């Protein structure tokens, strides 16, 4: 069928997304209300006077009938209001901008490391299949995946932080830097560049190295495996032989045909692994005391702050869905066969 326009594809895809989002949101809503006990009570602890509990209950709308709560919930989300926490009275949107930015900073650099390491090793392993290069590459990928990100982090902290004392082992930046840095985007790295504050940038980078490398290496294993398999498959495709029959040099065949075609699913996998990355981010942030949204989630869970947990999970869900649409879109752009 002749090429459907990219725009049509995007619109169709977006339309399909709505049921999925709805389901996720509903699941989150139900899940947290299915829990036994009074959530407000649980969050505030035992020593709070009943009057205060009631006040908060009314304020957060927990006393309304459930379908009304559901309606309010959805309507709030559409307007961008993700609620307020019970325990420390922060607006979720504030958590998203401040802590979310920290997570974004971490995951962005981690993803870059993961892709670079993973793709390079995967390409080499696939091209030189069954040679020692391949075996080493695969083993590396497997072992690195098998290493829990918090263990890798711990060892990194021990070696580089404690024994060698080269790198800091926690936080996003030193207190001094944080005090001096002006807030623009909340992403420290970017803010430092905007300010032209190179000392701060150095400090921030040093703080980034261990967490980002830990998370990045951990995620690289997926890419190694995928790229390798794809390169092997692609090299077997018929058009490769046909290209050789036209006298295309082996180098061009490998790079222009095999590697490029093998990389196509990378985008999908990146998208799919955003989920994995977010999970890993939660752990990395906890290990390195990184003030990201994952760390916040863990803290709020410990404190039984239901609205905070609900809000954060909703954010996660929306992010995951958005990334999946973006990935599909990029895929359709790259591979013309996919458009409906």
């Amino acid at each position: 069928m002749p090429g459907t326009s990219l725009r049509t594809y995007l619109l169709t895809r977006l339309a399909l997304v709505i049921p999925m989002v709805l389901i996720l949101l509903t699941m989150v809503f139900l899940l947290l209300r299915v829990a036994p006990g009074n959530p407000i009570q649980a969050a505030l602890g035992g020593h709070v006077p009943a009057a205060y509990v009631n006040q908060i209950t009314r304020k957060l709308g927990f006393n309304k009938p459930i379908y009304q709560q559901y309606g309010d919930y959805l309507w709030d989300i559409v307007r961008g209001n993700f609620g307020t926490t019970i325990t420390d009275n922060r607006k979720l949107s504030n958590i998203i901008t401040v802590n979310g930015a920290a997570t974004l900073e971490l995951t962005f650099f981690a993803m870059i490391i993961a892709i670079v390491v993973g793709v390079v090793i995967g390409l080499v392993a696939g091209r030189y299949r069954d040679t020692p290069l391949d075996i080493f590459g695969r083993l590396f990928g497997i072992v690195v995946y098998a290493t829990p990100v918090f263990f890798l982090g711990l060892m990194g902290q021990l070696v580089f932080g404690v024994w060698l004392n080269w790198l800091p082992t926690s936080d996003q930046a030193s207190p001094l830097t944080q005090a001096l840095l002006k807030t623009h985007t909340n992403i420290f790295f970017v803010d430092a560049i905007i300010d032209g504050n190179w000392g701060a940038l150095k400090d921030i980078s040093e703080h980034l190295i261990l967490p980002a490398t830990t998370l990045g290496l951990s995620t690289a294993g997926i890419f190694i495996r995928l790229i390798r398999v794809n390169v092997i498959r692609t090299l077997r495709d018929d058009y490769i032989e046909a290209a050789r029959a036209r006298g295309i040099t082996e180098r061009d065949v490998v790079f222009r045909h095999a590697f490029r075609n093998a990389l196509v699913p990378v985008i999908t996998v990146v998208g799919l692994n955003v989920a994995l990355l977010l999970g890993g981010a939660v752990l990395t942030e906890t290990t390195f005391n990184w003030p990201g949204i994952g760390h916040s989630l863990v803290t709020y869970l410990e404190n039984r702050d239901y609205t905070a947990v609900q809000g954060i999970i909703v954010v996660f869900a929306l992010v995951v869905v958005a990334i999946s649409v973006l990935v599909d879109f990029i895929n359709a752009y790259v591979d013309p066969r996919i458009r409906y």
Partner: protein
Amino acid sequence: MAVLSRTANGLRERKPLLPGVARATKPIREAHGIARGMLWAGAVITGFFIVLGLFAQWISPYKFSEYSSNGVRFPQLAHPSAKHWMGTTVQSSDVMARVIWGAQTELKVVVIALVMALSVGVPLGLISGYFGGALDRALVLIMDALFAFPYLLIAIVIAFLLANSSIGQGVLTAAIAITVAYVPLYFRVVRNHVISVREEPYVDAARALGARPRTIIRKYIFFNVVQNVPPIATLNAADAILLLAALGFLGYGIQPSQGAEWGYDINRAVSDASSGIWWTGLFPGLAIVLLVTGLTLLGEGLNETINPVLRRRRFGRFEFVEAPSPGAIDIEPLAEEPEQS
């Protein structure tokens, strides 16, 4: 395959006892080279841990929370020594004992979780894939939504909810949390496979002959699908161990009184690190790495032997690679997305 046996009249062909088994294990016995290496290395390592786990009681020098012997308390945070090969923790527990008992905990939880996930995911996938219709669409929507979500988050939330409920924290909670995270995976894989097999000519022929759906599923589809489950399940087990350790690290896993858990131990080790104490974290961590590596090698080895697309037969330098058999799915281990189907 012909099996000959000697009878009074000379040689006679004997039907192999379990043709299904022989057929199923054929690819494994034919495996060579790297795939075989992985298979055996993985099996050995995994086997080692299974033994540790099963016989922890007899292998381990101490119990997992034992902190004294004959009334004398063990040293706290002691370096590895002859008495405590891997040192002791801040609570005077022997690290090696905790590692060995940890193996039992990991295995217990993961086995329970996988069995549950399989028992829910596989039948749902079979039914949904074969019958289609509204039920299928509804299930797919839900499962896809869940599937896109980070496993860890699902598991944390479930564990959190269950911990506050009557079930409380423990083995069952952790297992359920892991199960819920993985059911969509099995559902999806099985369903995709069923759909591709369902349209095969031989199934069509069976339908034309009037076979009942139940028979068709049982005879053709089930075996075909199930053959692909072991590699997935093995790789999934690897993933599940990591998930369990993560839960333990965050404090949602097993309670210390119920057993030793590697992830939990690493969490405890974080505060030791600033003093340069390395043994409390290193050994549990290495255990995780080893076990997961072993399982992954086993799973990938199985995958390479069973999945014909990647298979390389033993013909020396000729590469006789079969075209993908219609029944085989492309298993992308741990990159859980088979090709766009």
